[in-house]
């Protein structure tokens, strides 16, 4: 069976791959959106934290025999704590100032993290085994789906949904959103806003690390795995409209799918399609698809 002269299984295969990539885009841009919403900082180090998450899982397995399932909890926790320290030491001093400084500072943090890891582990990729429970494939009738890929998509979607629910539908989320609008007023109600800000940064960073652990078995774990990804995620965030949580999730997934489709139709353009879409969106809707001006 073919569609436009391309065999259907090839299309479906690339679409699943696209969906997997889209899940990572969604998770990462979600974290960026949450951090930007409350801190007003564009976290350039997001890709580095994603990389550190993957490395934490890899090292945990190599050095201490921590298995995948524990790594899913421990790696984000460890990287999240690192994020909390960075927020307390550095980012805290930049609040209320030109957001460009936050971007530059986190860029520096990313360089430091990548440099240290490169010095320790070299630039070559390391492979992380797929956990036993998720090995193998299922035959869906119209295509063969590797179980792990299905798991990544399901896991990311449920994490995204949970985060969305937490922020949009719970009391904690309401407080968070209120602090975004007017931090002083919320503080006057006796809520420890600085602590909330710190924890939000930690949580956003932990989301990036979680994406890193999920990615470890399907990509090569290397110090530079996050540095080009973060640029794509920036484009995703510009397309979706910064600060919109639904926008981040939907555009992340959609762009992953489009990228997958491009790989089938015109492989040479698959690297650049997201940036081209960004340029087109900017021409017609400068605020992004879900953004408000």
């Amino acid at each position, binding site marked *: 069976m073919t569609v436009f002269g391309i065999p259907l299984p090839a299309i479906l295969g690339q679409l699943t791959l696209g969906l997997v990539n889209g899940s990572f885009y969604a998770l990462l841009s979600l974290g960026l959106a949450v951090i930007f919403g409350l801190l007003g900082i*564009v976290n350039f180090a997001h890709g580095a934290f994603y990389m550190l998450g993957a490395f934490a899982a890899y090292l945990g397995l190599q050095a201490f025999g921590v298995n995948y399932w524990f790594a899913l909890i421990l790696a984000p926790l460890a990287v999240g704590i690192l994020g909390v320290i960075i927020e307390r030491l*550095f980012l805290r*001093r*930049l609040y209320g100032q*030109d*957001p*460009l*400084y936050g*971007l*530059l*500072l986190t*860029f*520096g*943090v*990313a*360089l*430091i*993290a*990548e*440099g*240290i890891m*490169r*010095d320790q582990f070299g630039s070559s990729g390391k492979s992380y085994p797929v956990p036993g429970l998720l090995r193998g494939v299922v035959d869906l009738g119209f295509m063969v789906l590797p179980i792990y890929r299905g798991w990544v998509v399901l896991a990311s979607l449920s994490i995204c949904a949970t985060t969305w629910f937490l922020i949009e539908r719970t009391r904690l989320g309401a407080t968070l959103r209120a602090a975004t609008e007017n931090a002083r007023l919320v503080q006057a109600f006796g809520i420890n806003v600085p602590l909330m800000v710190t924890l939000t940064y930690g949580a956003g960073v932990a989301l990036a690390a979680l994406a890193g652990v999920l990615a470890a078995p399907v990509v090569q774990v290397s110090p530079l795995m996050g*540095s*080009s990804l973060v*640029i*794509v995620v*920036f*484009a995703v*965030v*510009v397309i979706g409209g*910064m600060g919109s949580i639904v926008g981040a999730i939907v555009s992340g997934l959609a762009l992953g799918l489009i990228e997958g489709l491009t790989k089938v139709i015109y492989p*040479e353009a698959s*690297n*650049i399609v*997201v*940036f*081209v879409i*960004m*340029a087109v969106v*900017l*021409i017609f809707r*400068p605020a992004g698809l879900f953004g408000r001006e």
Partner: protein
Amino acid sequence: MRVRAATAVTVLLGILAVAAPMVGVYPVFLMKLLCYSMFACAFNLLLGYTRMLSFGHAAYFGSSAYVTGWLVTAHGWGTIQGTLAGVAVAMLLGLIIGAIAVRRQGIYFAMITLALSQLVFFICLQAEFTGGENGLQGIPRGSLFGLIDLDRDLTMYYCVLAVFIFVYLFIRRVVRSPFGHVLQAIRENEPRAISLGYAVDRYKLLAFVLSASLAGLAGSLKALILGFTTLSDVSQGTSGEVILMTLLGGSGTLLGPIVGASTVLTLEEYLSDHVGAWVSVIIGAIFVVCVLVFRRGVVGEIQARFAQRRGATRD
């Protein structure tokens, strides 16, 4: 007083630049310094005088280097024609990317320029004429008007120095012109500049195109001087470097980018032999320090001290 001191320092730097190869400093390294200084000065026009953070300036630097290298090597173009063609491509690219990016401000502007420069990077990676992963090798320097042979390092150095001085004076002229003052008004308070009736987006776009073209000129010269161009010239790393040079030297000062470029290059030259991957750690750390406690940069800090002292004597 301060103006006179600044002029004195500029002239002194000029004399130093003319004399440097005679006292035994390696001319190729000096030429590299001049190229990156030019690149940083061009970048400063945006960051320092208009407060537009372009996070993808390597796109213009690198694409111009590729175009010049390709025309000179594969098509036998002359040095001047090749350089001008490279600059023209950088200018066109700056016009296209700038037109899209100036639609948003601040942080979005930075992210958009970064993403679009990544687009340029991938095009350079995949296009035929750039030589892909290998880049372009063996780019000849050629000669000026068929008279002056540029293969000699010293001859090339003085030509590059002449171009550099010209570009520096040009940027100084731009900054001090009415146009430059409008840019600085946009830097200080964009809504007010709009309410005064300035077509802010046009000014920003023109500044962007100017900056991209001069960055392109720096890239072309770099390709000719070193005889090669690689993907690293269009990469995010180079974009980051030029930001650091400008920030460290002092953004919004004329001499700052030169000081910054010289410092960063000397540091890299010295460190890369000794510490390997730690170069990137050190550069990252300088970024953090600059942002937290050293925002005015070296030259900005010195100027502020001078201004303070003058203020004190006046009281």
